[in-house]
């Protein structure tokens, strides 16, 4: 009882102080900003950018909330649902952002960009693709250019006399050698279901080319999620599982606690299909190991239609302004500060490439990422971000089921197609 009483008094105090600070805040215009830059170095880029904005725009104060990746998506959804979104928010573009745009809750940035063409033309044009709906731009690419690649332990490869595979038969040989030496070919932490989706997306791309997904998602004539490309990708994925391509426990391991990277660090697994941010994550956790890390493009599949396509995002996070914001002009200025030249350079210094033109990249890995992007026949955004949320979730569920061998490739493809027919009219 005494505990309750003190809790109540505490609440009263909190409420009281909230009232007081509320009254105090009236003479300062507050802009709320939400993002997911929880890592110390990338957080500093944001803190500095906000400081520059506040200095340039006296009278405005930015209130930042930094939230972890997965909780962030939920927090944002609740805020929009309750009609109290932050002024400036980060998103991944694609399907989920489109939901907010369709609900009329996101500011159309096209007029602002038209007024400041110098700012607009800094960016690589294709980087706006993910946030452009009906020809209007709703978000500014702000963080990184990340592609899914095959990361591998080059020391381990050298020890076993392995070459990086360019084709699937070569990959099968590499996997066999690794298994024969007691090393799991791939580390995968698929509790969150999106890491497994990366392998599947590449299989689809290599088998059916970029247009297999494009046509299915756009409901173009002949496009279908039951297309042989999707069935075959599911079959190959299950073949990998059956042959022991993934380190055990993959469907229960949690990427967010580093379960897949631990496998790489310890040498228990040799490769992982993951975004290029994995290098940054490893740099923070295990800088010694990063020296042994390298990456290659997902191998081509004989008879497949795709070879150079990449899965990834040009922009990574996109910054948008909500319509509920009381000071939209200032909010747009804040977005510009978040991706100004200083911020772009600061991100480059920690290894992230904001998709702006004329960036001098010296890091050999980054140069290769940019070359892969330049050579790519198509750039495919993550399926779960591109598709409407319900369909994106189903896709991830189905891939997890495929990996768990609890569904046949045909069943998975047909389920996806049936749901797509419903959702993507």
């Amino acid at each position, binding site marked *: 009882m005494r505990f309750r009483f003190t809790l109540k008094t505490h609440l009263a105090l909190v409420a009281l102080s909230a009232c007081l600070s509320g009254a105090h805040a009236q003479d300062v215009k507050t802009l709320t900003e939400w993002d997911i830059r929880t890592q110390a170095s990338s957080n500093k880029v944001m803190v500095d950018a906000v400081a520059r904005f506040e200095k340039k725009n006296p009278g405005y104060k930015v209130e930042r909330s930094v939230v972890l990746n997965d909780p962030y998506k939920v927090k944002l959804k609740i805020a929009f649902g309750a009609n109290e979104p932050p002024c400036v928010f980060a998103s991944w573009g694609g399907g989920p952002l489109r939901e907010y745009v369709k609900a*009329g809750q996101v500011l159309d940035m096209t007029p602002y960009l038209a007024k400041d063409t110098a700012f607009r033309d800094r960016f690589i044009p294709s980087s706006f693709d993910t946030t452009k709906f009906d020809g209007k731009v709703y978000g500014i690419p702000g963080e990184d250019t990340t592609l899914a690649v095959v990361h591998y332990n080059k020391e381990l490869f050298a020890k076993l006399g392995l070459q990086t595979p360019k084709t699937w038969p070569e990959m099968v040989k590499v996997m066999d050698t690794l298994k024969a030496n007691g090393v799991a070919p791939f580390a995968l932490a698929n509790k969150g279901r999106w890491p497994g989706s990366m392998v599947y997306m590449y299989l689809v791309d290599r088998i059916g080319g970029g247009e297999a997904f494009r046509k299915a998602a756009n409901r173009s004539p002949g496009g279908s999620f039951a297309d042989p490309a999707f069935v075959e990708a599911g079959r190959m994925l299950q073949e990998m599982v059956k042959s022991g391509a993934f380190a*055990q*426990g993959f*469907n*229960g*391991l949690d990427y967010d606690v580093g379960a897949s990277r631990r496998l790489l660090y310890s040498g228990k697994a040799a490769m992982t299909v993951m975004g290029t941010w994995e290098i940054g994550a490893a740099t923070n956790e295990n800088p010694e190991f990063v020296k042994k890390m390298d990456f290659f493009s997902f191998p081509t599949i004989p008879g497949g239609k795709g070879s150079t396509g990449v899965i990834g995002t040009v922009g990574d996070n996109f910054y948008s302004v909500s319509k509920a914001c009381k000071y939209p002009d200032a909010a747009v200025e804040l977005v510009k500060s978040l991706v100004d030249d200083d911020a772009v350079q600061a991100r480059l210094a920690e290894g992230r490439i904001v998709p702006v033109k004329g960036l001098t990249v010296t890091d050999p890995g980054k140069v290769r990422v940019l070359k892969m992007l330049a050579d790519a026949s198509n750039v495919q955004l993550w399926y779960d971000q591109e598709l409407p*949320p319900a369909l*994106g979730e189903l896709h991830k569920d189905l891939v997890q089921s495929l990996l768990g061998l609890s569904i046949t490739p045909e069943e998975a493809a047909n389920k996806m197609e049936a749901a797509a027919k419903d959702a993507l009219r």
Partner: protein
Amino acid sequence: MTRGEEGGPSPHAAWGDGRAAQALVPAVFLAPAVLLLAVFLLYPLAETFWLSLVDWNGLGTSRRFVGLDNWATLAHDAHFWLALRNNLALGLLSVLVQLPIALALAVMLDKASRGSQLLKILYFMPLLFSSVALGVIFKNLFDPNFGAINGALQGIGLGALAIDWLGDPRYSLASVITVVCWQNVPFYMILFLAGLASFSPDLQAAAKLDGASDWTIFWCIKLPHLQGTIRTAAMLAVIGSLRYFDLIYVMTGGGPDGASEVMATYMYKTVFAASRLGYGSTIAAAMFLAVMLIAMLGLRLTRRFETDV
């Protein structure tokens, strides 16, 4: 109420008509509770049932009334029935595992009385941890490649038992339920300890005098004395299990492949990941109905077995 008010003039005198005041008093005293219940319980409940009839992504004005379509979908949704089944398994195991352990601990701690303070605190600890922190710790312990559990099993030559605890659909639910039980045992232990505290030492002394063994005292006197508490505990365990969310969400996210899905995690994913607020509300409403039904059945069933002490 302060002393000054108590000593002041009678409110009846001030209001003139005593009867009107008499009728007002209960209303005034009830108003805050009724208001709070209405705002935080009845309104959301009604709203949930109303939302279960719409197709809506939770944003803007795209809300579309679809009648009982969502309920028809739910009736044929294998995933939901799997989740309900998992909830029931969790409830059953909670009663069968948590309560006996909690009872045994409580009886032993009660017997040891003063000397058991440290143990009481130790046993109570799991309940004090945040579920999220616990989930992360156990996720690491269960890790099939680096986890302490499999490491220990292999160390003592039981490598064959070192399975994929959370990633294999056959074991993930059982693994999570173990942790849930471990965390909740202390709660029931405290409940039983409180029940035992009200047990008269005279009665125990009298039984001893008559030559009753400790076992007889436990089975014939203490257990009947606790039956009300046990009933409450069982009801709480079942209801809690039907609404369970946190450790499962943190440890497996309901996966893999829905193997450890419970109604609450399914509802959460449907609303927040898939943006289907309407259908998510249908799941929530069904959850409410299931809890109501089972709670009512449970109360009725346990009452039947009640005996006079």
